[in-house]
């Protein structure tokens, strides 16, 4: 994985000391809250319901055991013994003290991590396929491009005061595991007819108040023009965005207002200008960064056999492991969704264990997923049983990847100052209700948000739940038919909302309809798309 050079380290260290001074001045009353707020947000520090919250960037979801151990240490030393993996491959801590925040950033910097641009009107942490560098179906490892995007967008003056946040994703396979089409800007690495590597470029997606699935703005962009093209996209948005209306500042709104063709025309025009400046990365710079992502020294001649005599282990293997590009290896998904548990939460002790397993069994590599789980990307099949035993003993052995209990949920009103309703209790109760039948239900992606900002990706859920405030009480809208995968679609609201118990009952009824109506091989989403909303509404509102 990428290692900081002296310039990276100096920039991050300088930023820590800059923030230390800013926090000191705020505590001493030399900065007002209005003056300090944008400064702390640029360093990932929010003020939430119970305390300050720090969101730490995990670039393209990749980290190593040293970094994971530091995340555990921060949880123990500065927080309350746990962290929360988010829906954008980051981790956040809920009980941070302002007077200690700079010390935390310094500890993070010591392991080449930071919280820069995890908030505010900036280009956020670049996300990627969590199986990058391991997936059997990828054209190439997309992470070097993720790192180049990170380098070109962190601290870029022109993009430091954007109209709103801007989220980027990068993948390199036809299977979309990164919710590509729901990002403001995204690239999919492809090969053209001549066998050349390039990018399909997507623009104008996003969730929130106005959910939009992005459109393909470019069929094929040569890799050596990536910087210029994204600069062009950002400059067109930066120039024309509706800065007068907070609800219309995201780039998706500009694309909707201009129309796809006109937005593309303006981007291409700007792009031609940027090409004349010759500011793109030279090949040598790509080669330098790509060298950090060289494949680990996989052993050869390994057996593909797995002893499946333990039925619980066999179930876990079937559910949690994925085909690896190297023979004899598997990608291991670690569920952070125990039945009835809090999605994405992990204790410091569990973090330490996962770090140990990564170091011993996965070439020191770990990944965070946007679905709030973790990944050991390179595990020998011969080691799977040992890894499973350790995970299971630590409460991390759930076998539910992409099943009904693998629920995405934002922190909701239990933690978030923006939320209108609690998300986590709904996730917990729904998980308990559906667990007995989740194997029968098969792939079913349930996503819960506690407000319209949609951090829980409810628009992209096969089943989505949106918490709203109804005259001071929590109310939940139910949505069906969304997808964050390569078949991206936007979920639709079923009708009137429910209280907490009601929405859980309604979802159970929806799954009854699916089990009754499904054709061979159909997932819940497939059946919904075939038969439409009406049969579900009839059952839910009967």
């Amino acid at each position, binding site marked *: 994985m990428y290692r900081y050079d002296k310039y990276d380290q100096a920039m991050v260290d300088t930023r820590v000391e800059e923030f230390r001074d800013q926090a000191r001045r705020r505590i001493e009353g030399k900065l007002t*809250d209005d003056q300090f707020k944008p400064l702390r947000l640029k360093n990932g520090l929010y003020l939430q*319901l*119970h*305390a300050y919250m720090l969101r730490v960037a995990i670039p393209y979801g990749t980290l190593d055991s040293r970094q994971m151990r530091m995340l555990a240490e921060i949880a123990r030393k500065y927080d309350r013994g746990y962290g929360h993996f988010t829906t954008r491959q980051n981790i956040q801590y809920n009980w941070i*003290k302002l007077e200690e925040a700079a010390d935390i950033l310094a500890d993070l910097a010591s392991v080449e991590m930071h919280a820069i641009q995890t908030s505010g009107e900036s280009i956020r942490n670049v996300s990627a396929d969590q199986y990058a560098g391991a997936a059997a179906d990828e054209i190439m490892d997309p992470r070097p491009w993720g790192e180049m995007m990170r380098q070109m967008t962190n601290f870029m003056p022109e993009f430091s005061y954007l109209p709103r946040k801007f989220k980027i994703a990068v993948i390199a396979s036809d299977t979309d595991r990164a919710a590509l089409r729901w990002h403001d800007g995204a690239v999919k690495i492809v090969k053209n007819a001549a066998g050349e590597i390039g990018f399909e470029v997507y623009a104008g997606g996003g969730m929130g108040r106005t959910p939009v699935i992005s459109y393909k703005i470019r069929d094929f962009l040569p890799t050596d023009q990536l910087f210029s093209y994204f600069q062009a996209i950002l400059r067109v948005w930066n120039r024309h965005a509706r800065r007068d209306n907070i609800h219309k500042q995201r780039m998706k709104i500009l694309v909707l207002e201009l129309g796809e063709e006109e937005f593309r025309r303006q981007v291409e025009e700007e792009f031609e200008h940027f090409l004349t400046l010759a500011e793109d990365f030279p090949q040598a710079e790509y080669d330098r960064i790509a060298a950090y992502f060289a494949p680990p020294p996989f052993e050869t001649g390994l057996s593909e056999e797995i002893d499946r005599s333990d039925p619980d282990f066999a179930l876990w293997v079937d559910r949690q492991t994925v085909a690896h590009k190297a023979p004899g290896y598997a990608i291991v998904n670690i569920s952070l969704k125990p039945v009835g548990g809090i999605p994405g939460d992990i204790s410091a002790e569990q973090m330490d264990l996962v770090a140990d397993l990564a170091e011993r069994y996965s070439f020191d590599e770990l990944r965070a997923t946007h679905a709030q789980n973790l990944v050991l990307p390179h595990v020998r099949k011969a080691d799977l049983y040992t890894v499973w035993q350790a995970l299971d003993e630590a409460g991390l052995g759930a076998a539910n990847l992409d099943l009904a209990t693998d629920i995405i949920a934002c922190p909701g*009103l*239990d933690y978030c100052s923006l939320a209108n309703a609690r998300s986590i209790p709904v996730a917990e109760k729904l998980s308990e209700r559906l667990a007995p039948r989740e194997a029968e239900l098969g792939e079913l992606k349930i996503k819960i948000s506690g407000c319209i900002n949609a951090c829980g990706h409810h628009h992209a859920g096969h089943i989505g739940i949106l918490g709203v405030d109804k005259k001071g*009480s929590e109310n939940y809208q139910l949505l069906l038919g969304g997808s964050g995968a390569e078949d991206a679609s936007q979920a639709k609201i079923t009708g009137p909302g429910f209280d907490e118990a009601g929405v859980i009952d309604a979802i159970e009824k929806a799954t009854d309809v699916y089990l009754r109506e499904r054709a061979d091989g159909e997932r819940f989403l497939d059946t919904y798309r075939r038969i439409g909303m009406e049969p579900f509404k009839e059952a839910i509102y009967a």
Partner: protein
Amino acid sequence: MRILTGNDLKTGLVIWWTGRDWSIHVEDAVDVGDQADTILAVEDAACRVNGGYALDAEREPGGGVRPAHIKDRVRAYGPTVRPDLTLKPADPEAGNWVI
């Protein structure tokens, strides 16, 4: 009644105005009537509170104070999904107060 809340500037903890100082216990909150802006201006200038605001609440029969909105009750109690991290971890019924 109208009460005042905010977050402690240094620690971020939720605090409630007691008439003379700030407390982490909502039951210590007092009715500030129409003095909210005046008090908050002084406390903000003294760097004792961050993001302060006034809210409606009601005095409970047992002497407690119950904020009118669920968001403020969550702030007063703690995360309902982690009773061990709330101010009343030993009371299994305390979470019902929030809802």
